[in-house]
């Protein structure tokens, strides 16, 4: 059995693979196959896998990239992830990608998609207009049509033709990965001393440039090793972190929250891997697996900021989550200038206030390097909840 520490080192190497060496190696092993990058939040990776492509989650440059050229493309009041993504692309670090998907998150990502087309006209890129109408006959038909269009366009670029059998197999692989991530989440919830949020984060993010099957195998190793770990229980406050679904917090920020006395028992980081709540069902009679992908998004897409649904629904979903993981408080951690997260926050706060659930709010950028203020704020919050049962 591989040790937990070794697995974490492997995960860290995958996360730090900014030059996409792993993707380059995959392309060498699969000559002619396409690697397709996608921005957060959600892209249906099984569709890409069924086309013989490697889906690659792109989370920007994190805290490892000095943004110089990227700043020229965005105003100062725009979040950080599009700048660092442009910086990586202009620096050639995303060169192994044969295409990019820009899912509908916000205007900034839409603009980034437009810039991509101008900067890299030879590469395939697409804006994935996720439906905001959740009726299968309207939003569902539109979304399935978009996915079929993607398939045709990628086939024209050398991808395998869309095939029902292969798509079913890819969906099965994705469902297996999702089930394994659920197991990780249960371990985090029930025994947070065996698997800290920062460790689970690394394990999940390691799969950014893996096929679902490969990632599932890795996650299973992590699960086995984590369950075997001998670690002491900690008296921490149990919190849910929300607002970090797109631009990711630096890993050190997650560790800072943990060191301040928080067990992050649930979060919305890397939401794409958990966007569909549960397994993607097999298609019903007369429908195919593309329809099944669309139905899953419509019916069981997570209640997140990029989904325009009633505020009471989102508030209820957060409360239900807090209850389900037995959390004692919520930390709103949103990227600076992240409009979707910051616009949703007041209604989520109101929902928590109605239920008497403690919360605190903080902001970060993917390249934040100083955590003293966050540490003090999280420490005060943790003590307040732990000792006095309420907000600071």
């Amino acid at each position, binding site marked *: 059995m591989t040790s937990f520490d070794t697995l974490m080192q492997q995960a860290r190497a995958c996360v730090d693979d900014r030059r996409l060496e792993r993707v380059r190696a995959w392309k060498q092993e699969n000559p002619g196959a396409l690697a397709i990058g996608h921005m957060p939040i959600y892209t249906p990776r099984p569709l890409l896998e069924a086309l013989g492509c490697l889906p690659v989650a792109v989370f920007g440059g994190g805290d490892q990239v000095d943004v110089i050229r990227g700043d020229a493309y965005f105003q100062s009041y725009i979040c950080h992830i599009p700048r660092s993504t442009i910086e990586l692309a202009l620096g050639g670090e995303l060169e192994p990608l044969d295409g990019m998907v820009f899912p509908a998150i916000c205007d900034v990502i839409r603009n980034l998609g437009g810039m991509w087309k101008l900067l890299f006209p030879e590469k395939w890129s697409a804006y994935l207009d996720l439906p905001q109408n959740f009726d299968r006959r309207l939003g569902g038909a539109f979304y399935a049509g978009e996915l079929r269009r993607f398939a045709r366009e990628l086939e024209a670029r050398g991808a395998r033709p869309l095939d029902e059998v292969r798509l079913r197999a890819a969906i099965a692989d994705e469902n297996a990965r999702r089930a394994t991530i659920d197991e990780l989440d249960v371990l985090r919830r029930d025994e947070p001393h065996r698997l800290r949020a920062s460790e689970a984060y690394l394990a999940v993010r390691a799969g950014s440039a893996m096929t679902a099957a490969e990632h599932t195998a890795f996650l299973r190793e992590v699960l086995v090793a984590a369950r075997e770990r001998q*670690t002491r*229980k900690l008296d921490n406050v149990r919190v849910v972190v929300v607002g970090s679904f797109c631009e990711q917090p630096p890993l050190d920020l997650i560790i800072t929250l943990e060191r301040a006395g928080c067990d992050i028992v649930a979060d919305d980081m890397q939401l794409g891997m958990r966007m569909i709540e549960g397994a993607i069902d097999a298609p019903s009679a007369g429908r195919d697996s593309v329809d099944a992908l669309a139905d899953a998004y419509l019916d069981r897409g997570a209640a997140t900021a990029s989904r325009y649904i009633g505020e009471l629904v989102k508030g209820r979903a957060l409360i239900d989550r807090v209850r389900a993981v037995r959390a004692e408080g919520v930390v709103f951690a949103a990227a600076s200038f992240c409009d979707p997260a910051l616009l949703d926050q007041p209604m989520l706060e109101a929902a928590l206030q109605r239920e008497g659930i403690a919360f605190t709010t903080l902001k970060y950028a993917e390249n934040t390097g100083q955590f003293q203020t966050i540490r003090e704020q999280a*420490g*005060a919050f943790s003590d307040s909840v732990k*000792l006095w049962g309420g907000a600071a």
Partner: protein
Amino acid sequence: MSHLTAGIDVGSSSVKAAILRSVAGDHGELVASATQRIRRRNVREVARATFEEVCERAGLPCPALDSLSTAPFDYVASTGEADLVEGATGHFYGMTAHARGALFLDPEAAAALDVGALHARAIRMDPRGKVMRHRMTSQCASGSGQFIENIARYLGVPLEDVGTLSTQSPSGEEVSSICAVLAETDVINMVSRGIGAPDILKGIHLSLAGRLLRLLRAIGGDGKVVVTGGLAIDEGLVKALRETIAGERRGSKAVTSTIVADPRGVVAGALGAALLGAFRTEQLRRLGDARISAA
């Protein structure tokens, strides 16, 4: 129910540890305490060594690092740089720990003035020890113990003699209270002018006291104020604080703070953490929460 708890406070220049025996998670008896300077040693190792020292002083075994149990302690609480304490049960934020420690030293305390090597903070708390307001010195070093250490070094005075020497001066020589760099330049000039170490140190203490009282005023620091942190045993600073408050009383500012100094104030953070650990042990026991029972 009786609880045995330990608190370990990792600061920027020293590690403090305290062992406490308490009943029902409330006030208790300080069994032993220990302080070790970090100097240039590995902080993690100093934290461990300080814990071992305090256990030895208390005549108790120190829990092994690789053990899943904290026995004989019900709770080992860390505060300060928590990640450098191995084997802790839980962590408490420094201000919460100092507030609780101050209340242990004087149950009527309304505020704590925590003066450490790197920062100083004024903390107003309620009778439970919950932090209600606080103010902290910014990046400037002139509000910290490190500043005193630097001055002592310039003067060639042992650190432990600084307080006593300062109390020998009636009024002190005025120094800049704005900036540590300017103050250090002032001190060099004073030395060259032949001013004695007691007057210089008194001037430094009055300067520091002025800064600290501004923090206190910002949080509404009336009532009893317990000095905690490394400078709690600096009698020169305590005297300067009291004199400055007395001077303000004679003037137009109605400050009614009463400075409380206790030699145990140095370990107030560790003591507070141990107390909070006891409180937490009792709280979890009453709630039937098994989150810290043996893994």
